[in-house]
């Protein structure tokens, strides 16, 4: 049997007033496996701890049961204490006879009986305790930030400034993200490019930041501290090592294709920079429109390039790097309203713009150099309808959630129209106006004072009549139908997670919520962490938010990353799941239930009679397992068990209560 020491704490009078400690000690002495039992006024005090240590030495104890306050209080204290003794820190059980006994009961006889039972349960469990050893995993002091928008840039800069290497990955040829497209930012109306491009440049030039543009994650293995991420760099066909970004090639390229950056409001060549202030400021070739690459003809850029940077033979290239931490900053995109809102014309009318298209239109560096004109005929609109909540707060057609930033940028758009084209009539159709932010309500007020007309109600139909866009709807405040004959309509559409988020989340084992936003580890207390250790969240990949919130979120994520990377290794709890290979049949029930993708099926060599075979069994990744034990209840055989809370231990507790 074991040699268990039982130590019952008086906790001053907290326990001793209600529990007859002496009787509890006497009964503990009779329990199977108990070699020593004793009491003390304050077990957690220095002399109390010393008493336990002395008893371990004197009686050769191999495990310890302390009957005291809640383990949530002092389990760590006592584990730490055991580190100096021969007893393994995990050969410790705590019987909670204060919070769950002396404090909640009054009848001393009955409370004493209950304390005796609780101690009996802990002793029975302790008899099945086994030595466990916390392992430490080394931490690769590098972070990977996925997504080069403002969130990714901010997180990368913060981590890099703290002295850690960062790889900033962006699938587009330039970092900058959505913020680079914006004209002005609410509520201060400072120029978006003026505040975001310096950050882009900082990121591009930071000695600790490596930009991985035109790159995508294709595979990942490992866990916190040690992710092996395989990245594909899509072919650029331009050797960025030599290219100076002179731009000659772009001017000579004969191809004109829709500009993504301007959302189709303008054309760009096949060899192009995403936008003039792109970082890196070097062009790439779009293989889908380049004549040389599609038809084998042309080759103009190669001819004009003074440095011979053009390399039509360039290929996608994969490489694997190790990172200690990952930041998701994958951002958002706008919902494809054309597929959902046939009643708005489904995208047939060129003078209906999304918010982002309008941003490009109104942007001084945009296709019209900031002139607000109709894309169809280049005329200035006299009446503009701005429709909010297109795809947001519309569970039937779009998303049930509020996209949070639209109320403010709708106000901003109205303001910009009224500012640039005084006298224009601007109607804003809304469900609610939500302005929770510093200076937001004031900005909204100002917009209304500027002349924007707010109409409460959804637009039910938009159709073309001559060169007017007729917007039918209801003013729900007045309770009557309204019809606006607009020259231009701006749809403030819902934010949705970036395309590709599903694959990426699955790769890292990160959970998504019902709307595919990445699920944070805890909605209140762990808003920048995921339930996968070492994977953090920055910005709108977690849910819609505006720029200040995104930047704050990104800095918070960076702080988490930095505190992780500042450690050289991380101690992992040894209370994790273990598999008995001879019993495991590889059915995979545990694999599906594990919230951390800590369990995978692994082929092992086995023998069936004389035959050597391979068979799958569950295998637990100790770096990922968080010790929740969900797998154990799913395993019919009991082949998977949780150290520290083994089936046998819990059953022993049950049995001990029943004695």
């Amino acid at each position, binding site marked *: *049997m*074991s*040699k268990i020491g039982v130590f019952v704490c008086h906790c001053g009078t907290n326990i001793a007033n209600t529990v007859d400690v002496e009787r509890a000690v006497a009964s503990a002495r009779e329990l*199977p496996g108990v*070699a020593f039992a004793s009491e003390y006024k304050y077990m957690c005090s220095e002399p109390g701890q010393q008493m336990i240590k002395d008893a371990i030495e004197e009686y*050769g104890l191999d495990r310890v049961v302390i009957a005291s306050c809640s383990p949530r209080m002092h389990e760590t204290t006592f584990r730490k204490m055991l580190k100096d003794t021969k007893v393994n820190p995990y050969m410790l059980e705590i019987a909670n006879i204060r919070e769950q006994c002396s404090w909640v009961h009054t009848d001393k006889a009955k409370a004493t009986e209950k304390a005796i039972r609780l101690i009996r349960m802990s002793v029975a469990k302790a008899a099945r305790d086994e030595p466990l050893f916390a392992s430490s995993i080394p931490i690769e002091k590098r972070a990977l930030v996925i997504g080069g928008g403002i969130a990714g840039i901010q997180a990368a800069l913060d981590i890099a400034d703290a002295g850690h290497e960062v790889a900033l990955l962006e699938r587009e040829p330039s970092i900058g993200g959505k913020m680079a497209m914006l004209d002005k930012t609410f509520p201060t109306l400072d120029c978006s490019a003026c505040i975001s491009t310096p950050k882009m440049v900082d990121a591009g030039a930071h000695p600790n930041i490596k930009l991985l543009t035109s790159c995508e994650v294709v595979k990942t293995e490992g866990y916190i501290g040690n992710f092996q991420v395989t990245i594909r760099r899509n072919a650029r066909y331009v050797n960025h090592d030599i290219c100076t970004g002179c731009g000659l090639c772009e001017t000579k390229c004969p191809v004109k294709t829709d500009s993504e950056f301007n959302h189709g409001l303008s054309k760009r060549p096949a060899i192009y920079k995403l936008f003039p202030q792109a970082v890196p400021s070097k062009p790439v070739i779009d293989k889908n429109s380049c004549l040389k690459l599609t038809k084998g003809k042309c080759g103009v850029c190669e001819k004009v390039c003074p440095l011979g940077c053009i390399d039509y033979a360039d290929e996608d290239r994969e490489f694997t790097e190790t990172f200690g931490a990952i930041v998701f900053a994958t951002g958002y995109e706008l919902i494809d309203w054309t597929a959902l809102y046939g009643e708005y014309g489904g995208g047939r009318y060129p003078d209906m713009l999304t918010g982002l298209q309008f941003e490009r239109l109104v942007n001084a560096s945009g296709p019209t150099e900031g002139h607000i004109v109709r894309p169809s005929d280049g005329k200035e609109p006299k009446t503009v309808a701005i429709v909010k909540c297109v795809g947001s707060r519309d569970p039937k057609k779009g998303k049930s959630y509020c996209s949070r930033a639209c109320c403010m940028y709708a106000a901003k758009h109205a303001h910009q129209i009224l500012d640039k084209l005084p006298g224009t009539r601007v109607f804003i159709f809304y469900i609610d106006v939500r302005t929770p932010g510093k200076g937001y309500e004031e900005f909204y007020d100002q917009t209304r004072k500027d002349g924007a007309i707010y109409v409460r109600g959804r637009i039910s139909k938009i159709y073309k009549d001559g060169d007017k866009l007729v917007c039918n709807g209801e003013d729900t405040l007045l309770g009557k139908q309204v019809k606006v004959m607009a020259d231009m309509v701006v749809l403030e559409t819902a934010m949705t997670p970036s395309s590709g988020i599903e694959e990426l989340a699955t790769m890292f084992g990160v959970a998504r919520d019902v709307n595919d936003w990445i699920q944070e580890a805890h909605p209140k207390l762990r808003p920048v962490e995921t339930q996968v250790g070492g994977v953090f969240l920055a910005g709108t990949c977690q849910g819609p938010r505006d720029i200040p919130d995104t930047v704050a979120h990104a800095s918070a994520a960076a702080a988490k990353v930095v505190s992780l990377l500042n450690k050289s290794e991380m101690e992992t709890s040894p209370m994790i799941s273990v598999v008995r290979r001879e019993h495991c049949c590889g059915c995979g029930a545990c694999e599906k239930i594990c919230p951390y993708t800590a369990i995978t099926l692994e082929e092992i060599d086995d023998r069936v009679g004389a035959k050597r075979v391979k068979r799958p069994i569950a295998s637990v990744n100790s770096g990922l397992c968080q010790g929740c034990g969900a797998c154990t209840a799913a395993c019919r055989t009991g082949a998977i068990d949780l150290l520290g809370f083994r089936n046998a231990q819990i059953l022993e507790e049950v049995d001990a209560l029943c004695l």
Partner: protein
Amino acid sequence: MVEIDHGCKCPGNPLLPQICKVIKITEETPDVKTFRIQTLDGKKPFTPLPGQLAMISVLNVGEAMFSLTAQGDDWIESSIKRVGFLTEALHNLFEGDLVGVRGPYGNHFPTEELKGRDILFVGGGIGLAPVRSFIRHAIAHRKDYGELDVLYGSRSYGDLVFKEDIFDHWPKACNTHITIDIEEDGWDGHVGFVPSYLEEKAFSPEGKAVVLCGPPIMITFCLISLAKMGFSKENVITTLEMRMKCGVGKCGRCNIGSKYVCLDGPVFTMAELEDLPDEQ
């Protein structure tokens, strides 16, 4: 040709254990411990013959059959390797803890029949445990027997059991040949597997009986080696104690063909085993 007594007896209710106390625990190797056991009133639980076994139980866990490796005036001893649930529980015992003991079970090594003959004891790993009782008996009755050789091997030095016996006590009374499987620092003895060492030693089969015990694979190769060296199967003796479960030949597990290891064994000559179905 060795005649083996196949009669087994155990007085009283053979399934009822008597409560005894562990008075001494010796750690032989990292996974083998020797338990010295005595009745609660300080007596020897029973007097086993060399090769006989006891059912030892951790009363609240279970019971299993173990060979008794030694005995004194007021104790019996068993060496137990940790292989499963029960042996794990046994290994967790401390001196002073109570165990259940019943026995003795099984027949015994042919101590009488081999009088006057040379004996070669061959053991591998924990396989020396059942043979130990016979070696101790032969040494205690040294003049009854001819030349005694003990050839014993294990994976490593650390895995050798009964180190005091094999290095200090036994060499005084018999020839000991110790080997380990793989070379290691600080070991200047023989290195190599038991069967090859056996052949190297080139024991003469003349008048010699062999008592062989160890893991199945070692037995297989030792038998090949012994045959090469000219030993007949009639003169090779082994024990099948690991097949015993209830100890009284009733629970149904121990039979090999119509022989019940509990009732007819566990000690057999290889010649006898060869006549049994191949189901070991």
